[in-house]
């Protein structure tokens, strides 16, 4: 009797999904190119108000929030689907802070140093911050929450994100977009 060997492919679909899913689906890195570019390490900025000039003078809860968000560099476990619960260490605590953590996370977006998290590619600290912001706000647009900019679509998958994030000032523009969005959300919740 003839056997059927059934090979089940979802790779193509998975790549497309990553653009919607806050890029928890990391880029797969391919073969060596002839030249490699160094990615500059950018230290994260301090978040905007409400923090006072010196962190030593910050209210205890602000300090605690900042200290917790600073731990995103240690996060090594995030599910590759935004709608799933984030139960991993530090990620869960930060998500539970909700919008209180948002300014501190937005400050991290420009941090291009390596995080402890990899999914198809080694995520930068700023990439992890973006994941957590998307989890908190459940934004429809990716990665710019206000849709002020769109990712080029060369590959149709996560590689569009990683390539874009390596372009000049992309992280800064993304950070500004999130800062504006966070401010708008805060304003709307007051009114």
């Amino acid at each position, binding site marked *: 009797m003839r056997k059927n*060997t059934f090979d*089940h492919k979802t790779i193509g*679909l998975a790549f497309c999904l990553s653009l919607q899913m806050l890029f928890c689906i990391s880029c797969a890195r*391919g073969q060596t190119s002839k030249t490699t570019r160094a990615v500059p390490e950018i230290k994260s900025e301090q978040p905007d108000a409400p923090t006072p000039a010196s962190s030593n003078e910050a209210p205890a809860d602000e300090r605690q929030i900042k200290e917790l968000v600073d731990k995103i560099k240690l996060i090594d476990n995030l599910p590759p689907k935004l709608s799933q619960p984030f139960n991993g260490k530090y990620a869960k605590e930060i998500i539970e802070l909700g919008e209180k953590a948002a300014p501190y996370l937005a400050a991290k977006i420009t941090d291009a140093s390596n995080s402890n998290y990899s999914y198809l590619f080694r995520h930068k600290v700023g990439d992890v911050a973006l994941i957590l912001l998307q989890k908190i706000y459940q934004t429809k647009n990716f990665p710019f929450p206000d849709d002020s900019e769109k990712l080029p679509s060369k590959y149709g998958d996560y590689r569009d994100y990683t390539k874009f994030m390596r372009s000049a000032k992309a992280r800064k523009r993304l950070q500004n977009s999130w800062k504006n969005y966070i401010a708008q959300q805060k304003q709307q919740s007051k009114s």
Partner: protein
Amino acid sequence: MSAATHEKELRSKLFLNVPAFETGDAVKIVEVSRGAAFIEALSIGNIAYLAYFGHSWNDGVGALYLHGADAPDTNLSNAGGVNDTAITKIPKENFRADAQIRLFGCQGAFGTNSAAEQFANHLKLKVYGYSNSGGSLFTQDKTLGHGKRAVKKADTEFKKFKKTSDTWLIPINGTPTFREF
């Protein structure tokens, strides 16, 4: 690309410890995004080998993530969540008694109650998945793709893919290791 590479290796018997491909066997690659479609695709029957290339995870109860949307029927898992289609809904009769299933997604056999374990418990077949923690990585390094060495930092850095080269989906941490259930 990984599925195509795997098919090539099946046909040429280059991928070890899987049912041998014989002349006359049919190989099908199917892209699905819903549990119902996954189950429907299996209705071809007489299945000797099933390989899954896609997203998966184990955060307590393992799941295959067929689609990223927060929508019903986008996961295959016995977790009982609103987006989960139970692995126990997969009909056993579509598989041969000695069939094998191999899950190439992240954490397919990691920890307890992994997707591989759920498949094995339900279908009573040999099921393999990666037991490594963390996410996955695509590589065009054959040695790494075949689990003959551990992932190095350089493997995780951005490199351009060659579109025509073979590609493997492997765990990003350690030496790719399959666990059997």
